[in-house]
C-alpha cells in the first residue's frame, strides 16, 4: 500500500438481500474499491450495536450496514429495528466525539449489485475524505459499554 491514507471499512450484510447483491456484483464483475471487508449476518436485525463499536475499536475507519429495503425484510420487519438502532447509534457516536458519518445504513436488494457497489465506492471516498478514525482519549471501555447498553434499551 502507498503512503497515502487508505481507509478500511467493515460492511455488515444481510444473508437474503445485500449479501446476494454482493454476490451479484461479483458475478457481474462490477468493480468497487477493495477497502471494504464484508461479513454476513442472517438479517440486519441481528446487528448488535456492539459489533459496530467493536469494528471501529479494532481499526476500522467506517462501518457500512446494509439490509433489505423497507417492506422487503425476509423476516418481515426486522430491518426497521436495524434502522432504529442505527439512528441512535449515530447520535451516540457523535456524543463520543466520533463523526457519525463513519457509520452508514443503506438498503440493497438482492438484485442491486450495481447499487451496492456504488454505495461502497461512495462511502470509501467519504471516509477517505474524513481521514483515519482517531479515538478520543477520554473514553474508556466502561463508558462505551454503558452507552451501548443505552442504545439497546432505547431501541429494542
Amino acid at each position, binding site marked *: 500500500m502507498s503512503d497515502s491514507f*487508505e481507509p478500511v471499512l467493515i460492511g455488515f450484510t444481510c444473508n437474503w438481500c445485500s449479501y446476494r447483491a454482493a454476490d451479484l456484483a461479483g458475478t457481474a464483475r462490477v468493480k468497487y474499491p477493495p*477497502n471494504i471487508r464484508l461479513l454476513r449476518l442472517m438479517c440486519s436485525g441481528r446487528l448488535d450495536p456492539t459489533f459496530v463499536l467493536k469494528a471501529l475499536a479494532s481499526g476500522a475507519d467506517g462501518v457500512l450496514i446494509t439490509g433489505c429495503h423497507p417492506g422487503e425484510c425476509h423476516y418481515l420487519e426486522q430491518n426497521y429495528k436495524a434502522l432504529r438502532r442505527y439512528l441512535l447509534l449515530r447520535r451516540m457516536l457523535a456524543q463520543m466525539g466520533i463523526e457519525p458519518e463513519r457509520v452508514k445504513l443503506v438498503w440493497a436488494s438482492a438484485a442491486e449489485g450495481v447499487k451496492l457497489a456504488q454505495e461502497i*465506492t461512495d462511502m470509501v471516498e467519504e471516509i477517505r475524505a474524513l481521514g483515519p478514525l482517531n479515538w478520543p482519549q477520554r473514553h474508556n471501555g466502561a463508558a462505551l459499554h454503558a452507552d451501548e447498553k443505552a442504545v439497546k434499551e432505547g431501541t429494542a
Partner: protein
Amino acid sequence: MTEQQNLPAYQAASLPPFIPGSFLKEVMDATPGDSRLQMCIQCGTCGGSCPSAADMDHTPRQIFAMIRADMREAVLRSNTPWYCVSCYYCTVRCPQEVHITDVMYTLKRMAIREKLYDDSTAPDFSQTFIGYIENFGRSFEFGLATRHNLRHRPLQLPSMVPFGLGMLTKGRMDLTPQRIENIEQLQAILNRAIELEAT
C-alpha cells in the same frame, strides 16, 4: 489502490486499454465524455437515419469500421463528417448509445488540424465563423456570408444579391458586426483554452 473513477468504461475496465496507440483510442480520447465508439455493432442505424447519407462517400457506420481498421488518412479525408448536419438522429437512435454526432465533430477537428480534407468549403466556413466570434464575441452573418461566398462561390454571388438585400431591407441583417463589451475577457479565455488543447 482505488479504482479509477470518472473514466469511460473502456478505460476503467480491468483489461488494459485496447490496442494502445490505435486510431480508435485516439478518436475516443479526443471526444468529450464517454463516446462508447468501441461499442459499435455495425447495425447501420446511423447510416439509415442520416439525412445526408446520399452525399457521403462513406456512411457513418463504415467510417466507424474504418476507424477500427486504423485507416487514419482515409477517414480524415472522407467527406462524411463535413456532411453531418448535427441533427442527432443517429445519436438518439443508436442502440449502443454511441455519441455519433460528437465523434463527427472530433473527426472534423482532426482533419482541420492535419489539413486532411479535399474540399475546403466546410472547414473554411467553420473557421471564418469562429474568426468572427474570436474578434467580436458574436457571429456576423453578413460578413460571414459575403466572405464565404466570395471565396467559394464567386460566380453565384450575384444570384445571392436578392437574398442579402432582402435580409438587409427586412431588418434581419446588419452591415456591421456587434461586439460584446468584455471581448478581452473572452479572448483570454479562448486563448487559454487553445493552449490547453495543444498540451
